[in-house]
């Protein structure tokens, strides 16, 4: 059974550390939440590990809505990771 495809977007210094603005991956088995996706990405590469080194500071949006790290990815087509916002 093949996993579902999901788009990931990175902003600000996460984008810089990871070296790309977006990518589409196939969700591996056992990755059901945003937190699990962060752990899985961090294990793949030093750039990701550096970007996600302090997971508590990372903000998450699922389909463009703010979400907590334990939110499920089941019905989500786009995940975004970014630092705390500094607009306004």
């Amino acid at each position, binding site marked *: 059974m093949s996993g579902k495809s999901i788009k990931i977007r990175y902003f600000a210094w996460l984008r810089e550390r990871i070296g790309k603005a977006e990518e589409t991956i196939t969700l591996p088995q056992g990755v059901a939440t945003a937190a699990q996706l962060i752990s899985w990405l961090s294990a793949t590469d030093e750039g990701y590990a550096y970007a996600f080194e302090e997971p508590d500071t990372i903000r998450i949006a699922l389909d463009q809505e703010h979400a907590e790290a334990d939110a499920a990815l089941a019905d989500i087509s786009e995940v975004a990771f*970014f630092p705390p916002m500094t607009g306004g």
Partner: protein
Amino acid sequence: MSQATVTLRVQEQDFDQAVELASLTAGKTNVGAAVAFVGYCRDEEGTLNCLELEHFPGMAEKQIGTLCKKASARWPLSGLTVIHRHGKIKPGEQIVLVIATSRHRRAAFEAADFLMDYLKTSAPFWKKEHKKDGSNPSWVVAKAQDDQDTLRWEK
């Protein structure tokens, strides 16, 4: 209570505060109060070349739209305008505009204040500082005070 007229734009170009204020008030006799907030790019030390504002297109508009709906539901507003710029912005230039109009001043003040607090903490924008000396640009760090400020509205 009539519905508030909401104008929302995320754009690179500058805005004209006076034009936006006039469009919410001109010819209206049910508006008693307008509160307009303008946020500017500061540079007290004279070392900044520009701020570069990155944003999440689509989500930015969506989040600001949600904030406008919340403000309209909470206060009896006649109009609400939010314009947030992205891209490179020089010291002294305008970054963000919020205007709230209402029959009464308290609603206009509170709605504008509320919108600015939540724009800071929930609209997906990130500021990067480019210095005049050509040193590596650095990302502005979010202030804990901004999160504190939003707690005022959670009662």
